[in-house]
């Protein structure tokens, strides 16, 4: 801590003010958005970057939406060189010119000036209710190229010096379904960037530019040192992992592989995805910025939790992400990208966690449940209005970590628990669906010394006449999420439609026509386990049986714990014998 220029108290204060600003931005959007994904499910990210693209504050959001946003910031600053002014807002959703993961994730960027100098960029990015294209929601599996996936907006000014460019926005809103709704959400996001501008300028007024900038670079250095020290504790070597999504939605039933060679060399981490599949015809392609964001997030999960409140540019400096252009983890125009945030975003995080769990067992994190999403587009017979239904309601749970069972009820890994479920009463009031059953499943999680959180059963009747369902955001019928250190993987997921007497299996990445009174049934997997199941404390197995999360049969066969079906007590002797027999 020699030759510090800023005192620690100021450093602390400035830092936490910036983090707080992001929390306030998110709160504003959260309270005002109308889109289900933003308002209820928190499919939204906010943050602050320096004008040169260094990540300053990213406390909460979806990794794919904002941990690679420095690439977009750099693009924008380059494109508008000398042509940015206070009160400007730049919008982009372009994967190739604006480093956006997929088209629904519209990002509003605002340059923050102080005394005439561009110092920061702030961003509010969120999944829009609609982004045009062949089918609502952005997860249409069969687009010919990126243009069929929706309106593609390169970085453009939508507010100029404090005035909305209404004609431009009208052109954009005219390309989407539900323009009034999108308009509310856009207003909320722009208001959030305005709030960030006010807060950051107030901070600069109070401490002066030099002090604030010094605090930021000091924080980067401190974070980098701490992250490098953590990496230094991992034994040097190369650790490999692979994971696949069921298929690419166009070429069916052919898994798409993401492969990683993770090298630890001293205090550096190199994530090399070079062995991954080439980019696909189907919509599972990730741009480099998306791969980068997901990979960084996965690394952060395994670092000292005490660092969790700090991650910034310093973290990223210690990590190199290699992904060859033209691969499924760094695709090129005009590849389709619709499903990328889920597939292969999930696989990217899984391979990083899998490799790091091998490298550093005491920080092992198993795979989370696969996302079991879908989008249904139909007309509500009660109002005659069109609606889109999507949610995270049916998703499973978190994966186990070293020391704890998986957190129940969380959605897939790529959301890091930042998204929420809805209420039955809210869903049924809003759209023509009736939920029949929504509960945890028995034995539907990866077993382990620490088991994954439980899987979820969801059954609902649709009474909205003819409809179309896209299962582009589902995954995991065939390919399972890994268990760590001998823990079991996530079980397979299933979706069915029951129409009268007939029951049809519905695969991920498909377009499915629906009829009135169709009943949709989903079995979502729970999370993966950590450590061998036969090492689980018998008392914990007993509680799981009591909770009906684990059956007596699985207790015996998987966990090697014998439970008396009458008393639900552990038969100590029989358990010892069973465990010794192996």
């Amino acid at each position, binding site marked *: 801590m020699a030759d510090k220029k800023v005192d620690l108290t100021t450093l*602390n*204060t400035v830092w*936490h003010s910036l983090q*707080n600003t992001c929390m306030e931005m998110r709160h504003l959007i959260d309270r005002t958005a109308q*889109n289900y994904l933003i308002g209820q499910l928190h499919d939204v990210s906010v943050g602050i970057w320096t004008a040169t693209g260094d990540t300053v504050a990213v406390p909460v959001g979806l990794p794919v939406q904002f941990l690679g946003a420095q690439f977009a910031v750099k693009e924008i600053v380059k494109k508008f060189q000398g042509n940015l002014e206070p009160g400007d807002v730049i919008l982009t959703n372009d994967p190739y010119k604006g480093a956006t993961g997929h088209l629904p994730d519209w990002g509003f960027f605002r340059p923050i000036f102080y005394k005439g100098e561009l110092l920061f960029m702030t961003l509010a990015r969120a999944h829009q209710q609609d982004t045009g294209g062949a089918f609502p929601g952005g997860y249409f599996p069969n687009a010919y190229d990126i243009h069929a996936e929706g309106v593609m907006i390169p970085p453009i000014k939508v507010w100029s010096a404090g005035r909305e460019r209404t004609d431009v926005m009208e052109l954009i809103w005219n390309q989407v379904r539900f323009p009034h709704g999108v308009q509310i959400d856009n207003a*909320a996001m722009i208001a959030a960037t305005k709030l960030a501008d006010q807060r950051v300028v107030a901070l600069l007024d109070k401490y002066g530019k030099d002090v604030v900038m010094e605090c930021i670079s000091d924080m980067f250095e401190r974070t980098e040192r701490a992250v490098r020290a953590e990496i230094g504790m991992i034994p040097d070597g190369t650790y490999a992992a692979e994971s696949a999504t069921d298929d690419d939605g166009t070429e069916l039933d052919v898994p798409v592989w993401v492969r990683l060679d993770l090298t630890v060399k001293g205090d550096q981490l190199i994530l090399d995805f070079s062995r991954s599949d080439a980019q696909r015809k189907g919509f599972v392609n990730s741009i480099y910025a998306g791969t980068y964001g997901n990979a960084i997030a996965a690394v952060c999960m395994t*670092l000292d939790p005490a660092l969790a409140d700090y991650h910034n540019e310093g973290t990223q400096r210690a990590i190199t992400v290699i992904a060859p252009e033209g691969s499924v983890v760094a695709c090129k125009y005009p590849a389709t990208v619709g499903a990328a945030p889920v597939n292969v975003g999930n696989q990217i995080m899984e391979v990083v966690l899998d490799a790091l769990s091998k490298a550093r067992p005491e920080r092992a*994190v198993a795979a989370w449940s696969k996302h079991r999403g879908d989008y249904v587009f139909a007309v509500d017979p009660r109002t005659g209005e069109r609606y889109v239904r999507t949610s995270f309601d049916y998703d499973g749970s978190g994966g186990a970590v070293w020391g704890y069972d998986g957190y129940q009820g969380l959605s897939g890994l790529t959301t890091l628990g930042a998204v*929420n479920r809805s209420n039955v009463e809210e869903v*049924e009031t809003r759209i023509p669906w009736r939920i029949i059953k929504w509960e945890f499943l028995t034995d539907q999680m990866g077993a382990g010394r620490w088991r994954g959180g439980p899987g979820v059963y969801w059954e609902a009747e649709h009474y909205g006449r003819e409809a179309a369902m896209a299962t582009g955001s589902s995954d995991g019928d065939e390919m399972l999420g890994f268990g760590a250190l001998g823990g079991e993987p996530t079980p397979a997921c299933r979706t069915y439609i029951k129409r009268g007497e007939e029951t049809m299996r519905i695969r991920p990445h498909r377009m499915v026509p629906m009829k009135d009174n169709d009943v949709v049934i989903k079995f979502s997997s729970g999370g993966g386990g950590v450590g061998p199941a036969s090492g689980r404390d018998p008392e914990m197995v007993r509680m799981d049986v009591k909770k009906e999360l684990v059956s007596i049969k699985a207790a015996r066969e998987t966990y090697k714990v014998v439970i008396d079906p009458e008393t639900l007590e552990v038969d100590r002797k029989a358990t010892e014998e069973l465990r010794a027999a192996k």
Partner: protein
Amino acid sequence: MKRICIDIGGTFTDCLVLDESGTLSLFKAPTTPDNPTDGLLNALQKAAQVYEQPMNAFLGDVNLLMQGTTLATNTLLTRRGAKTGLITTKNFRDVIDLRRGIRPVGVSMYNVFIPPYEPLVPRWLRLGVDERVLYDGSVLTPLNEQETREAALKLKAEGCQTVAVGFLYSYLHPEHEKRAVEIIKEVFPEAHAIASHEILPVWREFERFTTTVVSAYVEPVIARHLTNMESRLRNAGFKGSVLMILANGMVQTVNQCLGRAVTLLNSGPAAAPSGAVHLGRGIGLGNVVSVDMGGTSFDVVLVKDGVIPTTSENWVGDDRVAIKMVDVHTIGAGGGSIAWIDSLGLLRVGPGSAGADPGPACYGKGVEPTTTDADLVLGYLPHDYFLGGDIPLDVDAARRAIKKVADPLGMSVEEAAQSMFTTINHVMADQITAVLTKRGFDVRDFSMVAGGGAGPVHAAAMAQALGIPTVVVPSVAALYSAYGMFAMDIGRDYARSYISRADSLDLDKVNALYAEMEAEAYAAFADMGVAKDSVSITRSADMRYVGQFHEVEVEISAGAVSADGVKDILQAFHRQHERLFEFSMPFLKVEFSTFRLKASSPKAPFALKKIATGGKDPAAALKRRRKCIFSGTSVDTPIYDGERLLAGNVIEGPAIIEERTTTVLVPAGFRCTVDELKNYVLQQ
């Protein structure tokens, strides 16, 4: 006749007596967690002694006893509530466990090394029964009474003490829950049966069920305390009425609280802002930030135009509680907050706390450096007059503790103490900014009222950091919550969900809902002997743009709601939305979701005795001088005896005022004026 306010805290039971002359006296006794009435009676005993009366004569002369208690909060936070069962709609028994996929509030998303949430009712005590109501209130499946009976018997066999009942859409159709409660009472009469439509008759089942389960979980402990306390007070000679402080900032009779234990969460802290409002009114301050800095936590409440804000977005520990509660923002910052060095080598203070046991290092038992230790090392606290000298403070122990963080930071003990003082003040100041800006206000338009044991030492420094011009410290600051109780109104909140777009709103239905809520409110007041004409009613509605998920609460004027009235309400909604969120969209459709009513009745006013008036010069109250450190410089600082200060005295900072229970720090740049009610008004 006397009035008494009692605040049963985690460590101490505070008692304030207001006698016929308008004199306030303070008494403290240790809290007795196993039976809080013991501690309460001990505190009253102390008071009786000072008034030189036998207990029954002293209590016989008290007409009103108001009580706040942390019992409900502590029971919930320490998970020591009753064994609780849940009877719910079949196929939906995991609502309180799935809990909308919510990770713990306040844990970074990058931190996954956390234990999973354990719901208050484990899965095997959550039993589904056949019944189903639809979104429009119609019945798809009638309640299966046989299954309900079997479920109740099963929970009885499991040894539950209390049963929560939560069915889907019970806010529209409460009959199934009502019938289930009847069945439980029939087959399992010794259980407390708590139904969700009674606790929170509004939509969204997760929030309604979890709030109901929390209520059921704390009910037996609360019911036991309330009945025991009331009967022991009666036996001891008390003939007046007991009123309980509710989470929503109002008070209610003991009877009204039975069966609604969740409303006693935060009872105590919820009273503090009423004191701030009362003070503010007396001094002529419109907008007030009430801060209460105790041993472990720092509470902020924002009072705009004399209105105490409430919210239904509450978390108590890891549990969601959706009743209306005073919008108290709490963080772990207090006298006992521990200083530590984090993974980046930065000094942090809190949220960890040394609490009351072992307490700050200077109390003699603890070894961790705390805020109080820093305050002592800096000279702000007297080592020989803390709580009037009841607790001698050990300066050497404080220095030894602080050295633990000073050494690795390469600082002297004094530098580290200064840094701790500044750090904790900034943590608290940030919290104040967050609370204000969330509501769209500028902090500089507010005055600060500071209470709590540690508040008066830190208030001025926080105000300085925030640019708040005026800080008021009441001389009863240490018993801040108890003081607030004197100023509270009697009353309750009511709510009914009716989801409808503004353009198709059924006005008859709205007016019927309000009539129903009013009748309920008047009946409750009649039970307390309060006449209809002294009940004041305010109404509001939760509204949003069609499609939004969160509502904005908009006030509605009295009288029948008419079509023109709806237009005014819509205008008010757009304005409120703009103010809170920086935008509004008057061209969009708006919908109503929940109609609310608040019924209150002011208690008899109270007057405090004025102190003698003197000149500006406070020299007569100068007690001594002491070296204090301000911004790294040692300053010979005058110390005034608070008990001897007179109204009109003006003290220029830097200075310190010592009272038995409170130490007020007046930093350089502040001028402190003593007013006739013995408030210290600090201005910069």
